[in-house]
């Protein structure tokens, strides 16, 4: 009789194949439309910041990087050594650039989440969970861009500062750029799929439950 491989390994094979496939689809087909959507939502978020208005924008450079004009309170600029204009606006714009590679990284969470959810044990609530997770990552993506932008503004204004706020912002930017896009989709899938969560956390005996493909 053929020996059956263990549920974690079967899951790994399925999840790897699905991740590779969906990432290829994302890279070749979905990436550009997702970046258009990301730009629109991030611009909306920037304009919704305190003091934000239509003069704050995101422009796409020829190489695909984004030039962002962020609203920054005049009090912060003053602390960074910029003279305050008497009677001037309470918020002023700071221009910064975010490379396309960073922006692309922010959108990768969605196909990875879909792949892990589809590789997980079948769940009655699959479509609802897929929609919930997709909405979460859709909302998270512009927030991650904003965190990166805020960290760059800090870098421009307070370069080399070890102020606690700077340290926290640097950590947030590190998490937003290097950790969240690849780690959160997997954690979210485990959180949303009951069967997967019970097996991974050893809350259920994984050797008896079936992992359907």
């Amino acid at each position: 009789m053929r020996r059956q491989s263990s549920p974690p390994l079967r899951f790994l094979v399925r999840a790897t194949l699905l991740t590779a496939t969906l990432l290829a689809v994302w890279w070749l087909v979905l990436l550009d439309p997702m970046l258009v959507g990301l730009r629109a939502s991030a611009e909306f978020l920037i304009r919704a910041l305190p003091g934000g208005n239509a003069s704050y924008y995101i422009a796409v450079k020829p190489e695909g990087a984004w030039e962002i004009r962020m609203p920054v309170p005049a009090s912060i600029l003053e602390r960074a050594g910029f003279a305050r204009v008497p009677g001037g606006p309470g918020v002023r714009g700071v221009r910064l650039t975010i490379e396309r590679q960073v922006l692309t990284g922010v959108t990768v969470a969605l196909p990875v989440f879909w792949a892990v959810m589809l590789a997980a044990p079948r769940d009655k609530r699959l479509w609802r969970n897929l929609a919930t997770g997709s909405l979460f990552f859709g909302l998270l993506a512009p927030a991650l861009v904003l965190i990166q932008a805020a960290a760059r503004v800090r870098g421009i204004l307070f370069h080399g500062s070890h102020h606690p706020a700077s340290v926290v912002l640097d950590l947030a930017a590190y998490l937003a750029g290097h950790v969240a896009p690849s780690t959160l989709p997997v954690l979210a899938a485990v959180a949303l799929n009951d069967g997967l969560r019970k097996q991974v956390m050893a809350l259920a005996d994984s050797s008896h439950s079936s992992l359907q493909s």
Partner: protein
Amino acid sequence: MVDPAVEPLRVEVAPLVQYAVMNGGDPRKGIRRFLIGFPVCLLAGFALLQVPQVDAAIMVFTEGITWASAGLIHLFGGQAVVAGRILRNPVNGLAVEVQNGCNGVNVTVLLWAAILTYPAGWTRKVKGLLAGTAALHILNLIRVISLFYLRQYRPYWFVFAHLYAWESLIVLDTLVVFWIWASRGRRIAGHASTI
């Protein structure tokens, strides 16, 4: 004592429940502690990576990964020279630099946070940390070597594989390493539950 005439009864209980019962605790309490402890430990781990002294130690470790990758390439008949964290093909001059994010440190933090906060005995945790870390770093060496060759022969796919595909796949592998470790508790505790 087990009566030899009576077939021992095997009770299959989830490992986490077994652990809690054996330690006289409430399994839900263990899970609650994990749900709070895991994100806290994860954040603390990533914050630790930002400390300059830790960062310097990681750079040395990353150089070690570069040397180990070159050693493996030589072992299988390939050619590679190392300069710091740069792995170069001496024939065509094409190179890759092993940076933070490609050194497997992020997923090590993820695995450690999960194992350290999961309700299990300390001996099992230490074994899990050692074996799990070794498994992840062996996989990471394969990742570095594959990227070294992809850079030379399929440059179009290099960025895709480097920044997105491998990054996601290694997180998946971390999940599976944790899953295997957590479910091994069932087999270990399964012997204890034979009554």
